[in-house]
Each structure stands twice: as structure tokens, then as C-alpha cells.
């Protein structure tokens, strides 16, 4: 007979409650780590997917994501002429709020340099890419728009022709892709008050194209020849003086270590606290479970049970609490996190680390329990 199972079976509701408790702790840990991963992956989404080896941005500005940046709309042609450059595209992005069917929608309007870029790198799950130079848009599903919807941006109406999934900016606002020319038009047609504020230098926004930069683009996205030396291309463009060149790694560093630094540290700190709490609670539960059975353990010793009988009972229960709790926690996580407003990225590697942590925690706690159980003397039954 399996003592561990018999014990649990005799008080099943309590065991299940414990599993749910441990499960929620693990759900919270998965969520915290996943939120952190999600924020980073959202922030790096465009940088990692747009196909840029280099970004040409306004001189002295770490744009277009960490700081604002505005450069000449014809800069792409200049860049295209540099030896080693395979392609140069214009990039524009601005936060826009508009009304749709009576609700306010906040979107990060991003320009695709049509017709070179029709959005082939987007995760389009429904509909199609851009096919016209004007008035078509691809919207992320998080914006709540459907294929065929018409939205008004600036003074024009745009038709939603494609839907993407999981494409948001660092703030979590859904991306709305239009052609670069449309994006520039939209960015320049903000209300007059905003324009005034911006002109007076009072609007400190990180938008890729702020109102004062109407008619300008935020950056040029540069793809290099496979054979080209990136440092050489950088040096050539850098010598022009009016622009700076940032690599993909530079953009990563700017976002993660500067723009998102505080947020990251904060989330990591909370994650750390949560993991410590999880460790303490799980260990206490497992250790207490053993303590509660010391009398029975003494009895087992009295009737001559080998230590292996006692050890395996403790270890099995610890494993059931630890791994069972993990399974429950993961189940909750899979069920509820997709409903959260921000992306919670549950990565296999993180799950593996977490399950490893749970196994170690359960192992350490049960070894304390075992050490205590080994000290129990058979005659304590009589106490």
C-alpha cells in the first residue's frame, strides 16, 4: 500500500486546496516572469522583425524608439547610394487616438515604405498585406478592429485590409500599419493645440514623428549586403554629420537599458520577491506536512518500518505538492493570461527553470522533513 497516497486520500479536499494554493503562487510567478518577457518582446518587436541592420536617425538623438527623431524625408535616397547598402526604407511611427464606433482607440500608427514594403514581415492572421499607396491599413487584433472596418485618421478614412496578432509597441498599444506617406499625413494632422505645444517645445514625447516634425520621417531602415562591412557603412554615413547610425544591438540596448530600465528592474524585483515567497510557502507546506505525521512516523519505526518506507512517503508527498502545484499553476496560467491586456509570454525555457526551482525547493524542504523524521524515536509514540 502506498502510504503517501493513503494519507492524501484520507483528506483529499485539504490536499486539493493546498494544490490550488501552491498552484496560484506558481501562476503568479509564471505571470510575473511572462509579463517581463512580454514587455521586452513587445518593445523589441519592430527592431527584431523589420529587417534593419542599421537605423539612420537624427543626429544627436537616440531615435526613433528611445528618443524622438526627425530627418529629411529624402534621406533614404542618400543612404541608398552608399556602397554596401542593399536597401533603405523610410520609417515613421506616431501614437494616435481616434474614435471608432463610439469608443476611443489608441494605436501606434507605423509607416510601411510602400511599395517596397507591403508588410510581408507582419504576422498577418487575417486579410492581406497593403496593395494600395493610400487609405489601407493593417491593424493589430488588440485594437478591436475587423476586416473591412473604416476608421478616420486625420481627415481621411482608412480601410482595414489585414489583421495581425501580437503586434504592439513598448506601451502595449496595438500597431496600425499604413504606408509611410499616409503615416506622415496622419502624424502632421494632429489638432492645432498639439501643434502649438510642440512648436513651443513643450511636448516632450518619444513619438517617432512629433508634430513639429511634420513632413519629416523618423528614421531610415537600412538593410546591408551580406558581404558589406557594417562598420564601414556606419562610418561613411556617420561622416555626413546631420545623422547618427544605430545598429540593431544599439537599439536593443537603448530600449532595454535606458527606456525600459526602471520598469524592468521593478518587474524583476517583484519577480524575485514572488519567487522567494513561493519558495518559503512551498517549503513550509511540505515541512509542516511531515511534522504533522511525526507521531505516525514514530509508530512506523516502532513496528519496524525501514527508513526507506518513511523517506519515500515524505518524498512522494513533496513531489505531489510541488509538481502537482506546478501543473495546476501552469493550467491556470494558460487559461487566464491570454485574457490579460498585456502580453504574458510563457516561454518553455522559463517554465523549465521554474519547474527546476520547484523541484529544488520541494527537495530541500523534504530533506529537512526527512532529517526531522529520522530524529524521531520510536518510543515517542508513547509520549
Amino acid at each position, binding site marked *: *500500500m502506498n*502510504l503517501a497516497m*493513503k*494519507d492524501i*486520500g*484520507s*483528506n483529499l479536499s485539504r490536499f486539493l486546496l493546498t494544490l490550488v494554493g501552491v498552484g496560484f503562487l506558481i501562476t503568479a510567478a509564471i505571470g510575473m516572469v511572462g509579463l517581463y518577457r512580454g514587455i521586452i518582446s513587445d518593445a523589441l518587436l519592430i527592431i527584431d522583425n523589420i529587417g534593419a541592420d542599421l537605423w539612420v536617425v537624427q543626429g544627436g538623438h537616440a531615435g526613433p524608439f528611445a528618443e524622438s527623431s526627425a530627418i529629411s524625408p529624402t534621406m533614404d535616397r542618400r543612404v541608398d547610394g552608399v556602397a554596401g547598402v542593399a536597401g533603405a526604407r523610410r520609417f515613421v511611427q506616431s501614437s494616435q487616438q481616434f474614435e471608432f464606433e463610439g469608443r476611443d482607440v489608441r494605436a501606434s500608427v507605423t509607416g510601411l515604405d510602400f511599395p517596397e514594403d507591403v508588410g510581408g514581415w507582419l504576422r498577418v492572421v487575417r486579410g492581406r498585406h497593403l496593395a494600395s499607396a493610400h487609405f489601407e491599413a493593417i491593424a493589430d487584433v488588440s485594437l478591436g478592429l475587423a476586416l473591412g472596418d473604416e476608421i478616420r485618421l486625420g481627415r481621411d478614412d482608412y480601410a482595414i485590409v489585414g489583421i495581425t496578432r501580437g503586434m504592439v509597441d513598448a506601451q502595449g498599444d496595438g500597431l496600425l500599419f499604413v504606408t509611410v506617406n499616409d503615416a506622415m499625413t496622419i502624424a502632421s494632422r494632429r489638432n492645432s493645440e498639439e501643434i502649438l505645444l510642440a512648436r513651443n517645445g513643450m511636448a516632450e514625447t518619444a513619438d517617432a514623428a512629433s508634430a513639429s516634425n511634420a513632413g519629416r520621417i523618423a528614421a531610415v531602415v537600412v538593410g546591408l549586403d551580406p558581404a558589406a562591412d557594417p562598420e564601414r557603412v556606419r562610418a561613411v554615413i556617420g561622416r555626413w554629420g546631420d545623422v547618427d547610425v544605430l545598429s540593431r544591438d544599439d537599439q536593443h540596448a537603448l530600449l532595454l537599458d535606458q527606456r525600459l530600465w526602471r520598469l524592468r528592474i521593478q518587474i524583476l524585483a517583484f519577480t524575485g520577491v514572488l519567487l522567494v515567497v513561493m519558495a518559503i510557502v512551498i517549503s513550509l507546506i511540505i515541512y509542516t506536512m511531515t511534522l504533522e505525521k511525526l*507521531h*505516525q512516523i514514530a*509508530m*512506523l*519505526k*516502532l*513496528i*519496524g*518500518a*525501514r527508513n526507506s*518506507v518513511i523517506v519515500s512517503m515524505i518524498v512522494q508527498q513533496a513531489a505531489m505538492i510541488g509538481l502537482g502545484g506546478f501543473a495546476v499553476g501552469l493550467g491556470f496560467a494558460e487559461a487566464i493570461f491570454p485574457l490579460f491586456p498585456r502580453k504574458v509570454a510563457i516561454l518553455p525555457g522559463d517554465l523549465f527553470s521554474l519547474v527546476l526551482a520547484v523541484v529544488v525547493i520541494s527537495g530541500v524542504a523534504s530533506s529537512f522533513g526527512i532529517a526531522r523524521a529520522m530524529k524521531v*524515536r*520510536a*518510543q515517542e*509514540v*508513547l509520549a
Partner: protein
Amino acid sequence: MTRSPILSVRDAARHYQSGETVIRALDGVSFDVFPGELVGIVGPSGSGKSTMLLIAGLLELPTGGCVAFEGEIVSRPGGSIAGLRDFRRRKIGFVFQKANLIPFLTAAENVALVLQIDDVPAAAARLHAERLLAALGLGERLDNRPARLSGGEQQRVAIARALANDPPLLLADEPTAALDSVRGRQVMELFRTIADVRQAGIVVVTHDNRSLDLFDRLVEFSDGRIVAVTDNRPAARPASRPGAA
């Protein structure tokens, strides 16, 4: 008829150091228990009865003297209690004032457990447990957990558990103290039968004067020493002559 004793306690002592003073819980006790013999241990509170049972049951080591099973010395000062667990499992059954059943196991499981930890297959262990419990009048309560059994029933399950391995020696410390007189008498009669039928040697510590007639021999303790031995059936077996005070 000269049978050799199952249990021989020789000059056993157990002294506890308590600060400056030494408590002589047991102070040089010798006696034998033969197969089929029901021995009662009586004496005032604190006279060392339980201590003697712990030492005879290989749950504690003596600080002096030794304990022998079937002529072989198994416990002496400086020995190892942990190393005696296997021996204990096969040779000694225990019954205490409280039944001390494992609460999350049924009556049958509590009894079968003893066999299973001695590597008896589950089905055989279960069958044996059922027979034993039925023999003790608990055939209807096999699948009840201890919490649903009366005190007397629990105590009978505890006795079945002690008997499961068919040990040659049974040690009981005030097994009837928590029972009313009728149930207490039943339990004592059960011990008498077990001694007669199974030829187990049985030592019972008791305060219960009403059942003393069932015992073959009564050993009286006082201050850690044996002060009197009464043979109820002197003809039945060779007399043991302890070095009484």
C-alpha cells in the same frame, strides 16, 4: 519440560542523569519470559515498569546489564537502537494504552501494513489481516478508519497489528487503562488466549487488579527493582528466580 526462555533480562539498569542527581528508573532487574507465558508487571507509579518494557522491547538501551532473545544477547549498553529495528519487526509486537493506529489507514490496512513493511505481498498481507481481525471479532469493521472505531475496537486492532507478524514476544503497557472494566477484561482474556494458542510470551504492565487471575506470573516493581514475584501456576513451568530485593 525444560523450555528455554524467549526473553531474558539480566541485571538491567537504566539511569537517567538529571543535573546533579541520578534517577535510577531501573536498577538491576532480571527475569525471563517463556513461550506461552503471560507475565504481569505491577507496581506503583514511577517504579520503572514502562522503562523495563522499553528496554525489553529494544526501544531503549540499558545503561547496565543486557537483554537476550532466545539465548542471544541483542541489547547492551553502548549498542545501537537503530540497528535493532529489523529484529524488532520480526520478534516483538507492542500494545500500548493508546491504540496509536495510523489514522489515514483502515483497520485492515493498519494490520496489513506490518506485514507489507516486512515484504509480504499486498494481497497475502490483506488476507492475513482480515483473518486476524475476524478472529478478534472485528470482521465487520475491516474498512473503517480508526476514528470510526470505539476505544475497545481500536485496541483490538492494535492487538491484531501486534500479532500480525506472529512475533514470539508481545509487550503491552497498560493496554486496558483506557477501557471500561468489561472491555478491559476482554482484552486481558485475549492475551491469555494468544499465549495459550500461539505460544507467544506476553508481558503486560497493568494497574488493573481485576484481571490478575489470568496471569501465570506477577512481577512487582518498586523503585526500579523487583520486590516480589508471584507464581500463579507454579506447576506449569520452571520457576524463574529473580534476584529480588
